[in-house]
C-alpha cells in the first residue's frame, strides 16, 4: 500500500504541467474567462447597487440567486418553458424585493452594519429552510431551451454550448442597460444623488423611500435573474447561494463599492485570473482570486472605480 502513498506525493511532479499551451487553447480559455466573468458581473451588480447606494450589507444576496435558480426549475417544469419561467420569476422577485425592503430593510438604513449582517444572515437560514420544506434537498436540472440547445465546434475534440454564448450576450446587454439607466436617465440621476446625500435629495421633494424600494427590488431581481439564467448550466442544488456570495463580495470590493462599471471590470478580471489560475497554477487556483484582491486593495484601497 506504500505505492498509494508515494503516488500521491508525486502529484506535484505530474508531467502535464509543462505542456506548451497553444494559441487555440489559449483563446478558448480566454472565452471561458470572459463568459465566467460576465456571469459574475450579473450576480454582483445587484449586490453593488444595494451595497453602494443604500449602504446595506446584504449577505442574503446569494439566497436571491438561489431563489432565482429554484424558480427557474419550478416554473419551467410548470409552464414548460424557461422563457416564461424567467418572465414570471422576474416579476415575483421584484415583488419579493419590494416586500422585503418595506417589511425589513427600510428599518435598517440608520442602524449599524452589524444589525444588517444579523438580519441578512437570518434571511439566509430562513430561505434555505423554506427551500428545503417547499422543494426538498434533491439536486435538480433545468433543461436548456431547444432553440439554444446546440454546440459550436471549436477544434477537433471540443465544442462550445450555444447557451453559454447566449448567456454572455444577455449579460452584455444587461450591463449596457444598467449603464444607460444609471448614467442617462432621470431615475438614474436620482439614484446617484440619493447615494451621495439622502437628506438633500429628500428635501428636494423626491420620494427617497420609493426610490430605495425600487433599487432594492432591482438588486433582488438582478440576482434572481442571474440564478434563472444560469440554472440550465449550473443545476439547482442546496447551498448554491452561499457559493456565489463570497466571490460576489470580492467583485464588489475590487470594483469599488457601489460602482457598476467597477463591478464589470472586477468580474472580468476575476474571470481571467480564476480561469488561467486553474490552468497554469492549479495548486494555487483557490487563492489566486484572493491574492488579486489583496494586491488591488494595497494599490487602491477604495477599489478600482471608487465613486467620487
Amino acid at each position: 500500500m506504500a505505492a498509494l502513498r508515494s503516488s500521491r506525493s508525486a502529484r506535484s511532479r505530474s508531467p502535464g504541467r509543462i505542456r506548451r499551451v497553444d494559441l487555440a487553447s489559449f483563446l478558448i480559455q480566454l472565452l471561458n474567462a470572459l463568459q465566467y466573468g460576465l456571469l459574475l458581473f450579473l450576480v454582483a451588480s445587484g449586490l453593488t447597487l444595494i451595497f453602494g447606494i443604500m449602504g446595506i450589507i446584504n449577505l442574503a444576496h446569494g439566497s436571491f440567486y438561489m431563489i432565482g435558480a429554484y424558480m427557474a426549475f419550478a416554473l419551467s417544469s410548470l409552464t414548460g418553458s424557461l422563457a416564461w419561467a424567467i418572465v414570471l420569476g422576474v416579476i415575483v422577485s421584484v415583488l419579493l424585493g419590494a416586500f422585503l425592503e418595506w417589511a425589513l430593510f427600510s428599518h435598517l438604513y440608520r442602524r449599524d452594519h452589524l444589525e444588517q449582517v444579523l438580519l441578512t444572515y437570518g434571511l439566509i437560514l430562513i430561505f434555505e429552510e423554506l427551500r428545503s420544506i417547499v422543494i426538498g434537498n434533491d439536486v435538480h436540472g433545468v433543461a436548456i431551451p431547444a432553440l439554444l440547445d446546440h454546440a459550436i465546434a471549436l477544434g477537433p475534440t471540443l465544442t462550445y454550448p450555444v447557451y453559454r454564448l447566449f448567456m454572455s450576450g444577455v449579460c452584455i446587454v444587461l450591463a449596457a442597460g444598467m449603464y444607460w439607466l444609471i448614467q442617462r436617465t432621470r431615475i438614474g440621476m436620482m439614484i446617484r444623488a440619493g447615494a451621495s446625500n439622502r437628506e438633500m435629495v429628500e428635501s428636494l421633494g423626491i420620494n427617497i423611500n420609493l426610490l430605495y424600494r425600487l433599487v432594492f427590488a432591482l438588486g433582488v431581481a438582478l440576482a434572481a435573474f442571474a440564478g434563472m439564467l444560469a440554472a440550465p448550466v449550473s443545476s439547482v442544488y442546496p447551498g448554491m447561494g452561499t457559493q456565489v456570495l463570497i466571490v460576489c463580495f470580492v467583485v464588489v470590493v475590487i470594483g469599488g463599492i457601489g460602482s457598476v462599471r467597477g463591478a464589470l471590470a472586477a468580474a472580468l478580471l476575476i474571470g481571467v485570473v480564476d480561469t488561467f489560475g486553474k490552468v497554469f497554477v492549479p495548486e494555487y487556483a483557490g487563492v489566486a482570486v484572493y491574492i488579486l484582491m489583496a494586491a488591488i486593495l494595497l494599490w487602491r484601497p477604495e477599489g478600482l472605480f471608487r465613486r467620487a
Partner: protein
Amino acid sequence: MTMIRQTLRGAGALLAAAALLAPAPASAQQKIKVGLMLPYTGTYAALGDAITNGFKMAINEAGGKFGGRDIEYFTVDDESDPAKAADNANKLIKRDNVDVMVGTVHSGVAIAMAKAARDNNTLLIIPNAGAEDITGPMCAPNIFRTSFSNAQPALAMGKVAAEKGHKTAVTLTWKYAAGEESTGGFKENFEKGGGKVVKEMTLPFPTVEFQPFLTEIAALKPDVVYVFFAGGGAVKFVKDYAAAGLKDKIALLGPGFLTDGTLEAQGESAQGLLTTLHYADALDNPKNNAFRAAYKAAYKVEPDVYAVQGYDAGQLLAAGLKAVDGDVAKRDALIKAMESAKIDSPRGPFALSKAHNPIHDFYLRRVEGKENKSIGVAIKNLSDPSVGCKM
C-alpha cells in the same frame, strides 16, 4: 370525601402491587442505548434519513429486543458540520451515556466521532463516511464501518479502465481528502494495469466552474477521464462534460457517487456512463429483492445505497448483540462477534477486514434511463488499503 380518599388509597395500593408483580421491569437502566448521530438538516439530510430508516429496519427484523432488552434511540443532528462534531459526539457519550454510536455521512464529522469513540472507548459504527484514516491510522477495536473507504470504488475503476485497454487518463476532483483519496486509488490500479495518469487536476471545494478544465482535457486528449464529484457538483460536471462534446470522444469514469441520486437532474447527459460502487439499482439477488420490498412497504420510498449501509450497520450491531444476549457489558465478546459476523447484505454477503471495513464486491454499473444498472462485478472481495492501521 373520605370515601374518595379511601378509593384513591386503594387504587394506589393496587398499582404498587401491580408494579411489584410485573415480570422483569424494563427500567431505563437496562435498555440498550443507541445514539444516532447523522445529518437531519442540510445537504445530506436525505442521506441521514435513509440511513436511519435502514438501521431501524434491521434492528426490527432482528426482533427489536436482545436478551429481553429494548433498544432506546438517542438522536443528534450533526448538520454535517465538523466544527460541532466533537460536541455532538460528547452529548451522546457523556450526557446520554449511549452504549453504541452510529454515524455519519460527512468524513470530517466522522473523524471527530472516531476520535471521541477512541477516547471514551465507545462502540462506533460508521454507515457512510469513507475517510481512509478511520480504518487506517485511527482504526480501533471499537470502531466499525459498514460502507466503504474512499479508495475502494476508485481501485475497482482503475482496474476496469486498464483492462479495457485505456492507456492514458486525466483525473479531476475537488481538492479535499475524499477526492484525493479517490483519484489516488484510481491511479494506483490504473498504473498497475499498465496505464498512465498524465495529469491530476483539482479545484477548490465546492466550486463548480469546470469550463477551464474541460478545455484542458480537450487539449490533452487522454483515453479516459476519472472524476470524483458528488451531489450538485456531480450533476453540473456530467452536464458540462456532455455539453462540451467530450462525452462521446473521451470516456468519463467515476465512483458511483457521480451518478447516484442525481440521474433525474443529469438526464440525457449521464446516459451510458460507467461507474463503480458496492451497490447497484435492481441488483438481482433474493436478499436485495426482499430488502427493497420491505423498505418500500415501511417507508414508501425506494431505498438507495445509503439505506443499505444503514441497514447493514443495524445488522452488524444485531449480530453482536445476539451473541452476548443483549449484555453490552460483555464488550470483548460483543466486538469479537461483530468482527467475525458474516453480513447478509442487499449488496451481497460481506465480511469485515482486520481494520473493520467491509471486504466486498464492487459492481461496474452503466447508467440506463433513471437507473445505475450492474453490468458485472468489477473486482471481487476488495479489501480497503488500511494504510497505517495497527490492529
